[in-house]
């Protein structure tokens, strides 16, 4: 391999922003942090689960706690004003990032993508769905969407339909046309599959949903962190994603909704901050988006989320996408060299930045443990897509997923780790 790789992003400079990438692993894990018995360099390929956090984002959180920590919205005092402005502005920053021209009124902060999904399922689904209605999902939905709509549908007696996937792990769009009909009130689809890496034609699906008067909810957990997203170009009615998969902290995510839809929607959680006027008998709701943010919100996390977006925008989301695609294709090609590896999902030149696979004769969890002994962090399991794994005929799979700081060398370390597994299990 050539001495100096050329990448769409400046990997060297980026890596220096992430101290965790310098650490060794492999020792006792009962107390967190690096210790003397950690001697194996970390190769982190589990970014679809969570990404790492650059110094700039951690600094923004430290600045908040050290400089202007305070509760938001209600305080008249100086610190509360600073915190309120920063926290509320963070909503505008998120809106801008995904092309929501309505600004903060179209972006409510949630704990994560799952909570955003539940917010719509409970606030809209429980009130608006009836027994004759259908909700259309895909066979590659994450449990965040699949379980949520499945359970809401059970409560209201609505039907759940699943758009089939073909042999390459792409949606069968003819089947989608059959399923999305006049009974359909919601189409909830994953933008990029966290298991297959499939990039779904969400704009086409939005058209199909709108043609029958249904809403479309796009699960952007794997797309917003890895490529430019414009919710208005997609024409998504709802879009959700999580901060921790895109250089931000955990505990913060965003629910985008078209303003007129959010306006009509009832709140999901009740309590402080989300109300305008309360009497012993009744209450009225605060303006958008605050009526969807009951109680003291994740203030530091919201500010960190905006800092993460600043960080990614400095790199440029087009460049992030190009880097993801380069590593995905490289990993796909390298893994395709071997007959004993089954890769799930579309070809290497048409997928998000992750590759799920199985090595013949080695259970995914054994493979993950063996790779872990080489310092290679990958995910093994069902990746919160159990019905999809049932369909694939695999109890579990191994997934490598990439981000802005990963290199081809790290993909090579994964491939070399497979040889050790082969030798052990031969």
């Amino acid at each position, binding site marked *: 391999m050539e001495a100096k790789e050329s990448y769409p992003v400046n990997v060297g400079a980026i890596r220096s922003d992430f101290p965790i990438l310098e650490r060794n692993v492999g020792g006792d*894990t*009962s107390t967190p942090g690096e210790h003397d018995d950690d001697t194996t360099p970390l190769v982190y390929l589990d970014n679809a689960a969570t990404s790492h956090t650059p110094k700039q984002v951690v600094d923004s959180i430290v600045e908040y706690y050290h400089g202007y920590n305070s509760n938001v919205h209600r305080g008249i005092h100086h610190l509360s004003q600073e915190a309120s402005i920063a926290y509320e502005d963070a909503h505008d920053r998120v809106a801008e990032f995904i092309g929501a021209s309505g600004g903060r009124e179209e972006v409510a902060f949630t704990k994560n993508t799952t909570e955003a999904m539940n917010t719509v399922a409970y606030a809209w689904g429980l009130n608006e769905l009836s027994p004759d209605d259908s909700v259309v999902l895909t066979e590659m939905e994450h449990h965040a969407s699949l379980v949520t709509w499945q359970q809401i549908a059970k409560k209201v007696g609505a039907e759940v339909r699943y758009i089939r996937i073909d042999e390459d792990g792409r949606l069968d769009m003819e089947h989608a046309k059959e399923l999305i009909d006049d009974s359909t009130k919601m189409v909830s689809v994953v933008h990029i599959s966290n298991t297959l890496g499939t990039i779904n034609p969400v704009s086409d699906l939005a058209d199909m949903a709108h043609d029958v008067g249904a809403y479309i909810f796009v699960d952007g957990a794997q797309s917003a962190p890895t490529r430019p997203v414009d919710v208005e170009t997609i024409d998504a009615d709802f879009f959700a994603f999580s901060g921790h998969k895109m250089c931000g902290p955990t505990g913060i995510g965003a629910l985008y909704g078209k303003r007129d839809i959010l306006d009509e929607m009832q709140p999901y959680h009740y309590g402080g901050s989300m109300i305008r006027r309360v009497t012993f008998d009744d209450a009225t709701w605060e303006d958008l988006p605050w009526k969807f943010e009951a109680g003291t919100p994740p203030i530091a996390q919201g500010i960190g989320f905006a800092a993460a977006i600043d960080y990614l925008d400095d790199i440029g989301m087009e460049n992030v996408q190009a880097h993801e695609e380069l590593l995905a294709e490289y990993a796909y090609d390298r893994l395709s060299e071997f007959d004993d590896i089954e890769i799930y999902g579309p070809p290497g030149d048409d997928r998000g930045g992750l590759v799920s696979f199985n090595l013949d004769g080695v259970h*995914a969890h054994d493979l993950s*443990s063996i790779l872990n002994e080489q310092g290679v962090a990958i995910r093994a399991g069902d990746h919160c897509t159990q019905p999809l*794994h049932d369909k694939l005929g695999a109890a579990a799979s191994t997934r490598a997923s990439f981000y802005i700081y990963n290199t081809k060398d790290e993909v090579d370390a994964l491939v070399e780790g497979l040889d050790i597994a082969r*030798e052990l299990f031969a």
Partner: protein
Amino acid sequence: MGIGSDMYRQQILDHYKNPRNHGRLDSPTFSHTGENPSCGDTITMDVQLADDGETIERVAFSGDGCAISQASASMLTQRLPGTTLSELNEMDTDDITEMLGVDISPMRVKCAVLARQVAQDGAKIHDGEIEIEQTKTEDDD
């Protein structure tokens, strides 16, 4: 690095590749099945008791899953004959780790103890102490 692994020592791999007492018993005193839902490991344990109704005479296992779960089940089928049901019920995670002879990383402990849990639950069902259809390990990923 050469061929070596902390967790996948020769004994584990040998029991995985050549499982002992693998299959079903013709007339088990009791049988029980369990799974790790998140891993897809499944194990059925068949146990045959001696005439005293307390001493384990023969054990067989079937199922599939990762090397740790299957090797642990294989080794348990050799370990249990001659012990009593109450001795089986006293077995804890340390006993399994000792039997396997390797350090099991925290995230894999549920794989290692599945067979023991299935055998213990099977014994308790046999004694009428509990009523469950299947053993499931509690945590999920």
